[in-house]
């Protein structure tokens, strides 16, 4: 029993340490001035961001809508129609938006990233880059980390907007709260900080997902089975990383 606990602790420490080392390597690759392969950056911005837009917007719309429908029962019971916009905006901007979008992003982009890098590792494409005197961290990892951070931020901006839109729409149709009341409640009770709070989180979530998915991708061992294991581990570790980061940032920015 103690041995098993010890194995788990050693395993977690090794993975967290590996992700930390990768972060230092990424930072070192950005010195003395940030430079990266523009083609790789554009390719990743497009496939990670633009291609994720439909699924992220759909998720955001329905999460905003569900939030309003669920809270509608209490809004009616307590006659709190004037608080519906504030409640939806506050929870969406600060928590629901960044968290749900990050989890969707991790499932779609992070897992794909791990699988691609893992396949490159087991087919020696990463060694092939090294043999051509091209730094895999600078060429492959830095553009991916940058693209994920930028695109998760952008997707959260769009997602927040669409979630609120979904909330306002369902608030009118299902709960019977007029959209003008909804918007007034939202704009008069929420400040810029409520929006920025969630957007700051989204940048850190992007960092967590990118480093985790890249780390598990480039440390794959054991062929196709290893790639499957790495993808699984990457998604689980990213989800835990998002939650832990969310908790820390909420405490820091309260």
């Amino acid at each position: 029993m103690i041995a098993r606990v010890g194995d788990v602790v050693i395993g977690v420490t090794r993975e967290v340490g590996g992700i930390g080392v990768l972060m230092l390597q990424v930072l070192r690759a950005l010195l003395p001035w940030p430079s990266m392969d523009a083609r790789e950056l554009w390719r990743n911005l497009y496939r990670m961001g633009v291609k994720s837009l439909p699924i992220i917007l759909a998720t955001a719309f329905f999460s905003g809508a569900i939030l309003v429908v669920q809270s509608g029962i209490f809004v009616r019971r307590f006659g709190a129609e004037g608080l519906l916009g504030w409640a939806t905006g506050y929870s969406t901007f600060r928590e629901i938006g960044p968290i749900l979008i990050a989890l969707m992003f991790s499932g779609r982009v992070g897992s794909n990233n791990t699988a691609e890098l893992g396949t490159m590792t087991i087919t020696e494409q990463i060694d092939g880059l090294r043999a051509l005197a091209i730094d895999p961290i600078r060429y492959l990892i830095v553009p991916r980390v940058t693209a994920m951070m930028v695109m998760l931020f952008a997707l959260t901006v769009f997602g927040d907007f669409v979630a609120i839109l979904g909330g306002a729409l369902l608030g009118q149709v299902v709960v019977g709260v007029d959209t003008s009341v909804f918007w007034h409640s939202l704009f008069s009770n929420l400040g810029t900080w409520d929006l920025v709070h969630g957007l700051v989180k989204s940048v850190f979530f992007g960092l967590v997902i990118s480093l985790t998915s890249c780390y598990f991708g480039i440390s794959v061992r054991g062929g196709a089975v290893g790639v499957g294991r790495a993808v699984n581990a990457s998604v689980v570790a990213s989800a835990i990383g998002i939650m832990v980061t969310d908790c820390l940032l909420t405490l820091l920015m309260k």
Partner: protein
Amino acid sequence: MTIEFRDLHKSFGAQHVLRGLTMTIERGEVFFIIGTSGVGKSVTIKHLVGLLQPDSGEILVDGKPVHGLAEREYYPLRKRLGMVFQHSTLFDSLTVLDNVALPLRKHQRMRMSAAREAAKERLAVVQMERYADRWPAELSSGMRKRVAIARTLTLEPQYVLFDEPTTGLDPVSARRVDEMIKRLQTLDVTSVVVSHDLTSIFTIADRIAFIYQGQAHIIGTPEQLRAADDPIVQQFISGRSDGPMETPGF
């Protein structure tokens, strides 16, 4: 310009693969490293470009030690010492043309259009210019191998390491790769070829090192190898399943 391995040892866990490998490769020669599967041929050449580090021993290129360097210290060496991997290692996300243009963009600071023009010329040398816009996954293994060779040669290395360049190729494609390797000699390029393709070995090799039990069992010309009065060498050359040879990969 020479490559020297001095008393090289390398283990993977309990498996002691290289056990005191010592050999010298001279400038301009086509040097074959042969032996049974799993004997450590690929492991040997991966040490040369720092993809593996020895447990002990020395590796010298042009008299300078090239083991135990930091990753970035290998980059100047890797520009002079190109490697063609067994499975070509073309990048799936780039077209054939962009694969060949990549080292030019990165190391010769060429703009994309100029790098692509230069890459087309390199592809023409290996008769692959018609496939420039294809993706690696759309090519046969022989085609991929030729593109990998073109990509490796873009930086005009002084040494080229070939890891089983003819494995998995049809006989005609294999002989074309052989001719390509032999042609490099006229450009004063030293080729180190890992192979167990006997036709290649006895057609284009200047010298051969036969690796057995982690050491250079015999080093000599193809004629010397053929004439060797050594039952292990003769068993390998004749391809007999019975004999004194231990086969680690079987």
